[in-house]
């Protein structure tokens, strides 16, 4: 049938278009970065200065800012995310409380990031400021730590949901074998459940990390927007995403804009690989699970 052939071709076309879309995103970023790449080359990545006035641009302050905020956010959210994962994947698989928890994490994931930023700005920032005062550090309120705190809440759903799913999938006969040997639940978790689900948990954390790296609005609103390398966690800084959000519409010179896009390209490459690896692990797991 002619129609079927057209239709099947249409299916392939749609698939191809999406692949092309992702490829073109990369290519466009590269092309638009070329002026900056030509001007600064690779030293862009390692240079310490971002100075729009003198038109000298480099990415290190933001790479450091991004890594600090997201690593710290992941570290803060880790115990909570794992607790949720074990709670709803093992301790309380069914029932009212576990579905309430599931619903709550769904909602956390559904809150727009601008609202996280807004709430952080009006509740966390004053809180942190008080804290800083009592420790005798400059009371910015905003800064890396505040941003990490907001981020850590935001990534809980991402870090916990994947982990919960893989923990819930651990075959019960394996666990029962553990209990039958007289192990406590903690021991079963350590010796049976954790080893069985560790790669899935890792993949989930990786994807959550990717989220944290790319998160823009919430961070922009509470990080303080300073274009220098931070020396303490309580100093204002900027991430790759937040500096783009801040300066993109104000960039007057072509080289400034191109440098911001260059930052976007770096962000793209980092998150591309993190997501690629995370999803490959998941894909691999589901293939193994099927066979």
């Amino acid at each position, binding site marked *: 049938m002619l129609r079927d052939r057209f239709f099947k071709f249409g299916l392939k076309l749609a698939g191809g278009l999406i692949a092309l879309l992702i490829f073109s995103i990369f290519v466009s970023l590269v092309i638009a970065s070329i002026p900056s790449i030509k001007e600064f080359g690779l030293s862009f990545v390692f240079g310490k200065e971002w100075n729009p006035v003198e038109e000298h641009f480099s990415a290190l302050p933001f790479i450091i800012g991004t890594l600090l905020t997201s690593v710290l956010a992941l570290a803060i959210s880790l115990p909570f995310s794992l607790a949720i994962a074990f709670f709803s994947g093992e301790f309380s698989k069914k029932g009212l409380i576990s579905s309430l928890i599931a619903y709550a994490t769904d909602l956390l994931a559904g809150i727009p990031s601008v609202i996280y930023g*807004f709430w952080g700005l009006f509740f966390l920032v004053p809180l942190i400021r008080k804290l800083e005062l009592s420790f005798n550090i400059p009371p910015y309120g905003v800064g890396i730590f505040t941003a990490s705190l907001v981020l850590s809440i935001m990534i809980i759903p991402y870090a916990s949901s994947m982990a919960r799913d893989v923990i819930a999938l651990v075959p019960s006969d394996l666990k029962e074998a553990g209990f039958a040997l007289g192990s406590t639940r903690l021991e079963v978790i350590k010796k049976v459940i954790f080893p069985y689900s560790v790669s899935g948990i890792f993949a989930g954390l990786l994807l959550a990390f990717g989220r944290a790296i790319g998160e823009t609005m919430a961070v922009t609103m509470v990080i303080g927007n300073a274009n220098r390398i931070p020396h303490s966690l309580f100093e204002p800084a900027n991430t790759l995403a937040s500096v783009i959000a801040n300066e993109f519409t104000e960039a007057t010179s072509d080289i400034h804009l191109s440098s911001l896009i260059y930052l976007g390209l770096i962000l793209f490459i980092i998150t591309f690989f993190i997501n690629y690896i995370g999803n490959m692990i998941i894909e691999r797991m589901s293939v193994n699970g099927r066979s």
Partner: protein
Amino acid sequence: MGEVKLRILKDRIFTFIIYLLTFLSVIPLFAILFSLVKKGLGVINLNFFITLPKPPPDAGGILNALVGTFLLVLIASIVSIPIGIVAGLFLVETRNRFANMLRVLINVLQGLPSIVIGIIAYLWVVKPMGGFSALSGGIALGIMMLPMVVKSTEETIKLIPYTLREASYALGADYFTTIFKVVLPAGISGILNGILLGIARIAGETAPLLFTAFGNPYLNFNPAKPVDSLPLLIFNYAMSPYERWQNAAWGASFVLIAFVLLINIGVKLGGRRWRVKL
């Protein structure tokens, strides 16, 4: 004996910690919802929805943002839904390396920072058109929505039993008819749920709109002109020094979160109610 007691004690402590941390994790959610209700609800009245922003110190309403959000979501849906459904079908129907790669790529696309998508829409639409526009913002949001449409289509259609198709083929229907009259209708509620959740997600996006839709204090229906959106308005008002504007931002946040929650609840309830019984 003592050793066993120690093991049991450790187990108890561990269990306690798990429960404690789990319950602590939901506190921020309630804190956020609480402040939205406390600060936002008071601002909201009919005027808030049907008037335009006013210059400071007044704040006015959010009609411009509501209209803008609607326009952006509409454009994003047009951009993403048809191609997303067809690509989702492609993933169900195709078993080869390209399909596997595409599946991973779509997940990667979903994980890309929204600000990067904003840059792309700027490069692809704003620059050629010579100015900010609803169209560019809608396209940015559409690119973000695309993976969600593809994935919900794939996941739904994958679950439609193959015997339904066989029944259709056995009646002499061709592939095209089988897909459009049998398979897609059987999966429509799942796909629709995915689309609704996608809309809830993109309606709250700010970053990709900063330099595409840009914001606009006036009413605008023209896709070639800048528009405001709820999250954009929240951002601009929240960062402003005027108290009334900040209050309006709380009100707008309440409206936005209510919209997102309603869609989520609707999908949860409706998903059960309207699901096609297979």
